[in-house]
């Protein structure tokens, strides 16, 4: 198996179908994740962690949806009294925080955590234990937010927490602190996921899978991961300055002491606008994969697609001020942001044109995933066009902070996020579970969702133009807003029916769905080249990629990487640009330390808002957990020794 001197094992990458078959039983033993509760807590398999992420995020989607339903009930008629202002404010704040921080962003990168290693043809993410830590941190943060809401300590100053309303003077109590720390947890988790995706996609690709051959979904995840790395620190700074203001008495945002209330808005939106694209860009990646598969041809103008993704990611950082047009910034400066906001329509437009050309020149099959993509085209177009409208300063000064913007953002996030997500879920569910989702229920799911979304959100455009501000818990009957609000509330019940249909479909298909086999859609990308669901080691033999197509263009020889050890968790590291085999990397085994470290992080952030000693104790616990995490253990030392000896 191994024979060569330094760089020792590289020469072992014999490539060719004639190589001896790997010892699958031994691979199975090496990559096996323990069963039972303990195994569940300690797993470092990217697929287990990502599945958990997806399920947890979807759970938060349901919870956030329940809050939305309660709000629609309250607004269904004027001067309703189902929710008072106190509860309503907690609900809309927690709805926004949940949907953005606990659902949309995590569900998008968790798809990446599941699929990127499979799509690039490797066995796991780059740092498996860190990945597990990221999930537990996210879970602790999400539970913290929701337990607080149940205890009537939910945030009540919006998902944006503008000062001075969110400051110590106007929001006493712990509600805003809960918001700040819950957000901090999700920032850590997102940064962890970004690091995983960048390292995995850049350094662990199958030989031959050079950057210009990467599936667009992986490109989208890379762009998103870089955006997370550049955007999240801003909100991390903001969500630490705010507790400092509240708990320690600093004056960063207090104009009376030389601070600036607008500083908060700049910090928040410099993160908050890219955040929208952190949700949207992975969705574009999903659209590209689904369009490719169901057109049965490669995407038209691949380089333009990649450049459009990168351009969107860069431009997204130049838009934040369009959330602040009404704050009285200079007209000249705002014009720049209008132009940038209009400009970002161009790369998105290019992608739309390329998808249409791909469908046009392919032989499309209208399966459920493609149906959701068509829904995405319709719904997102409406959101995109109203987005260009609100890029206009004079128009935005009318509709800013009204239901027009509520309509716009839900068209963009449901159209540009949830429709592609449903498409992706119907598309990859067979890979996740080995079974197909029912197409009949899928079509019902689609039509209910499509009708419900439009019925709920389209009337809101007119409500906004007619003067109804956002974030109001009620409105006077004399305003005449009752009819359209009732229509929107009826639409919300249809959305609820659609989500119930989806849940029923998943529940039924998990038991009764058709068995999928490795590649039910006859797709091209590498994740379809292994069993459904994939074994813990993903591929018995890592593939070698020969052209831009993955499975569609594989030669008869089907070359694979040989020489990887099956008795150790060994992965192949390749070069960034061309994916030439570079060296071998030894991956850690399951561990409980990531969980303990996440719990210690939880103690640090949560107790810190009650007493400054919380930071001290929490920091000590985190340090202990990290020491435990990094402490060399006997078996690993032995493994490493064996590896060196054999090398």
């Amino acid at each position, binding site marked *: 198996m191994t024979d060569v001197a330094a760089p020792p094992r590289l020469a072992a990458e014999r490539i060719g179908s004639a190589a001896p078959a790997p010892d699958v039983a031994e691979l199975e033993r090496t990559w096996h994740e323990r069963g039972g509760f303990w195994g569940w807590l300690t797993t470092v398999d990217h697929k287990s962690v990502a599945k958990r992420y997806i399920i947890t995020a979807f759970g938060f989607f349901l919870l956030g949806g329940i809050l939305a339903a309660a709000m629609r009930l309250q607004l269904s008629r004027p001067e309703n009294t189902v929710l008072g202002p106190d509860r309503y404010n907690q609900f809309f704040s927690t709805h926004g925080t949940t949907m953005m921080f606990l659902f949309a962003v995590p569900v998008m990168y968790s798809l990446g955590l599941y699929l990127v290693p499979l799509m690039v043809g490797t066995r796991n993410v780059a740092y498996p234990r860190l990945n597990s830590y990221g999930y537990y941190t996210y879970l602790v943060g999400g539970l913290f937010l929701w337990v607080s809401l149940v205890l009537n300590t939910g945030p009540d100053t919006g998902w944006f927490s503008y000062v001075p309303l969110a400051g110590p003077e106007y929001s006493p109590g712990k509600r805003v602190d809960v918001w700040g720390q819950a957000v901090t947890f999700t920032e850590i988790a997102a940064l962890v996921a970004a690091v995983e995706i960048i390292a995995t996609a850049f350094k662990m690709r199958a030989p031959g899978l050079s950057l210009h051959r990467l599936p667009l979904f992986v490109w989208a995840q890379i762009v998103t991961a870089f955006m997370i790395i550049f955007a999240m620190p801003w909100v991390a700074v903001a969500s630490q300055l705010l507790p400092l203001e509240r708990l320690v008495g600093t004056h960063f945002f207090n104009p009376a002491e030389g601070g600036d209330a607008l500083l908060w808005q700049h910090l928040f939106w410099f993160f908050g606008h890219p955040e929208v694209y952190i949700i949207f860009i992975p969705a574009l990646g999903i659209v590209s994969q689904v369009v490719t598969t169901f057109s049965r041809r490669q995407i038209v103008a691949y380089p333009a697609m990649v450049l459009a993704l990168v351009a969107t990611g860069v431009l997204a950082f130049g838009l934040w001020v369009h959330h602040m047009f009404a704050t009285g910034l200079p007209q000249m400066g705002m014009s720049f942001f209008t132009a940038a906001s209009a400009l970002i329509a161009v790369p998105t437009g290019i992608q739309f044109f390329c998808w249409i050309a791909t469908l*046009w020149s392919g032989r499309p099959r209208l399966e459920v995933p493609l149906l959701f993509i068509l829904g995405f085209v319709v719904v997102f177009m409406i959101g995109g066009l109203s987005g260009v409208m609100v890029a206009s300063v004079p128009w935005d000064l009318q509709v800013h902070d009204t239901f027009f913007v509520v309509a716009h953002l839900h068209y963009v996030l449901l159209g540009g996020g949830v429709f592609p997500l449903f498409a992706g879920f119907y598309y990859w569910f067979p890979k996740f579970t080995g079974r197909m989702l029912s197409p009949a229920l899928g079509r019902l799911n689609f039509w209910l969702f499509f009708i419900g979304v439009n019925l709920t959100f389209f009337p809101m455009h007119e409500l906004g133009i007619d003067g109804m501000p956002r974030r109001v818990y009620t409105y006077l009957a004399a305003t005449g807003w009752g009819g359209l609000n009732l229509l929107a509330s009826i639409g919300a019940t249809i959305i609820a029916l659609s989500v119930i249909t989806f849940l029923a479909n998943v529940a039924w298909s998990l038991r009764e769905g058709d068995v999928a086999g490795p590649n039910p859609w006859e797709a091209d990308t590498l994740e379809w080249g292994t069993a459904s669901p994939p074994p813990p080691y993903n591929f018995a033999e890592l593939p070698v990629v020969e052209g831009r197509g993955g499975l569609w263009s594989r030669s008869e020889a089907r070359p694979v990487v040989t020489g990887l050890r099956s008795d150790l968790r060994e992965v192949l590291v390749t070069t960034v640009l061309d994916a030439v085999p570079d060296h071998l990397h030894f991956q850690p085994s399951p561990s409980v330390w990531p969980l303990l470290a996440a719990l210690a992080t939880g103690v640090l952030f949560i107790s810190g808002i009650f007493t400054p000693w919380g930071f001290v104790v929490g920091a000590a616990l985190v340090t202990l957990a990290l020491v435990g995490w990094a402490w060399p253990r006997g078996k690993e030392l032995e493994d490493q020794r064996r590896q060196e000896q054999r090398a």
Partner: protein
Amino acid sequence: MTRDWLQSALEAAGIQSARLLPLWRFMWIVSIVVFVLVVAAALWAVARHRRDAAPPPSERGMTRAILGATALTIATLFAFLVLDFSTGRAITRVPHNPLVIRLTGHQWWWEVEYDDSIPQRHLRTANEIHVPVGRPVLFQLESGDVIHSFWVPSLAGKKDQIPGKENSVWFQADTAGIYRGQCAEFCGYQHAKMALLVIAVPPDSFSKWYDSQLQPAAPPADSIAARGQSVFVSSACVMCHTIEGTQAGSNVGPPLTHIASRRTIAAGTLENTRGNLAGWIVDPQRIKPGANMPPNGLSSADLNALLTYLEGLR
């Protein structure tokens, strides 16, 4: 309350909001055209090949089509930007000889102050802004606590009232009428019930109104009203409200010198009737939970006297 006001960005009653209409029509028509073209192309792309199996179009032809569509997108966006910038410039141009009003947002009401070079003609009122038709009105926007946003859709776009920042916005009512607006920046519990009315009247009516508002409060007309006045100045009311001509001179809450001349109470929330006023005084927390006005446990005789007094403050 019956609706006798306008509150819509598209029902323009002044030059500032009317300037938006051409921009809106352009955006609306272009959006419909773009939407129909793109959606039709996408649907047709999926539908057509299910019928025929003709050879696919050439890659070169498709690249050209994509480039053409992209160029068209850029050209349309450029036209949009030109129209947008010219509209924006027109709206920000400072008006000539405006009436200047200082508008301060409070949780959850609006303090309105008319500046005048003669100090005695400085006028302070609340929640209703009378303006003369045909004259520009410049608002100096301030906040007494958190961020609020001043927005009267039929007259102009909104502008935030941010502590520590001087903002201004102007409009001109070109037709007489009532224009309603609501606070447009989330400002806490009663963000929903923080409304105001702009009442645009001909210039001579405006002068009359202004002069009458400058007068101190009407003295009690009878013994019941007199008892009401003494209830006012001897109960919690006096801690927050001003009634010119009495000892009540606190600026925490809205001034009430001419409360009976206003159409609404509680910042555009209730019609100004005796019954509503009674309900508001006795238990404001039922009407606006979280508002800064405490409940007032007055005896029914005291309450009646107080209402009679307040109803006389025209």
